Structures are given as structure tokens and as C-alpha cells.
């Protein structure tokens, strides 16, 4: 019902921070429950950090972030111009190793998948499109 956010930011850490701040402000204004707001901001940080550090890796490009209240849910969209990367196919890290042997590669993507109710990936027009959905309490 007109409750939507759309921001385009540079593919840099500054751009990441700007997108997270905008999504935080929108979520609070739109009355997204804190529990869901925290999950979606964590997921957004993971996705954007992945794009900035690995996808773009220093090359320029803009990232589009959309967020909307959609009936009984919240839908977060992220699109980036980096090479094809489908996080749904990424390997999950070992989360049971002892302290000394613990490696965190892939943990961010695992968190994105675990913290959202639905994740969809699409490669379209030379961009990665990720859509995450949270269903609000029934």
C-alpha cells in the first residue's frame, strides 16, 4: 500500500552502510517487527558484503535494494552487476569445528538462508537478483 523503499547505492562499503541505514529506517517506519527487522538487516549486510568483497572486488557498479511490506510479509530485493553468483548453490561451512580449526568462509550466505523464510535467485539482464521474504506472524 505505497509502503516501499528503493535505493541505488555504489558497490562499496559506504554504499553498503547507506543501504543498511535506509532499510533500517524504512523497517521502523513501516512497523516491521523488531525480530524481522533484525533478521532482514543482518541478511542485507551479508548479501551486500559478499557483493562488495567478492562479487565486485574493487570494480565499480551499483547495487539496487528494494524493500516492501507485501500483505502478510516483508520482501527484500537486492540486485547487483557482479558475475553470476547463486547463493542457494553455495556450500555451507562446518559449524562444529573446535575454536582452533574454525573457518568462517560461507557463513554469511548460510545466515542469509537460515534467517529468511524464502530465498529466490535469478540471473537477468547481466545482474544477480536475490529476493528474500519474511512472513509476518499469523
Amino acid at each position, binding site marked *: 500500500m505505497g509502503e516501499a523503499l528503493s535505493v541505488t547505492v555504489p558497490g562499496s562499503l559506504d554504499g*553498503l552502510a547507506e543501504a543498511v541505514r535506509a532499510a533500517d529506517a524504512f523497517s521502523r517506519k513501516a512497523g516491521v517487527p523488531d525480530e524481522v527487522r533484525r533478521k532482514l538487516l543482518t541478511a542485507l549486510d551479508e548479501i551486500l558484503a559478499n557483493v562488495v568483497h567478492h562479487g565486485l572486488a574493487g570494480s565499480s557498479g551499483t547495487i539496487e535494494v528494494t524493500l516492501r511490506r507485501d500483505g502478510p510479509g516483508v520482501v527484500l530485493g537486492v540486485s547487483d552487476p557482479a558475475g553470476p553468483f547463486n547463493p542457494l548453490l553455495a556450500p555451507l561451512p562446518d*559449524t562444529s569445528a573446535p*575454536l582452533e580449526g574454525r573457518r568462517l568462509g560461507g*557463513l554469511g550466505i548460510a*545466515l542469509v538462508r537460515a*534467517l529468511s523464510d524464502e530465498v529466490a535467485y535469478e540471473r537477468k539482464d547481466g545482474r544477480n537478483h536475490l529476493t528474500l521474504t519474511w512472513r509476518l506472524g499469523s
Partner: protein
Amino acid sequence: MQIDERRERGVVVVAPAGRIDSTTSAALDAHLQGLGKAGDHRVVVDFSGVDYISSAGLRVMLALAKRTKEVRGALALAGLGDSVRQVFQLAGFLPLFTIEATREAAIGRVAAA
């Protein structure tokens, strides 16, 4: 990121506030590394003012745990809200840390270690 620091019973209590994510975790990391360089190896991190933590923040906590173990220091965490606790749990981090509900209890654990 705002980071509060106090000392009590020989323990340094570090309380970051707000989000611990890709853009803020470096400040927390620098703060915690500074403690180590100053010889402060008995540390409590109080999460009660933390909105949420992402894997960038987990990296900082893992590094702190490894450094603390190397120098035979002591570390405990306190005040994990539901969101922070869930991320620790999903990452398999809960068994790696001493975690207490309150700051007082965490200080007690580190002071007694």
C-alpha cells in the same frame, strides 16, 4: 559505533552499542585488539546494547576468543538478545564461548577463572 568500557574486579567490560556488521565491526575489532596489546586479557563483552550482529561481527568475536586462549586469558559474553543469540547458534558459536545472562554473572566467571 559507540563502545563503552569499564573496569570491575580486574575485568574489562566492553559494551558495544547498535549494529555489529560489515561497516562497524572494524571499530570493535580495533578496540578489542587494543585491550590485548595493553595486556588486558580478562574481558567481558556485554551485548545488551547490540541490535544485531552479522558474520563480520562473529569474525571479530572468534579472533578475540583465539587471542584470549593463546595468552591464557579469560573471556565471557553477557546480555545476548534473541537476535544475537540466534546468529551465534546458527553459526555454531554457542559452544565456543562462556555465556552468561547478565554482566554481573559474566564478570564473576572471568574474575574466578
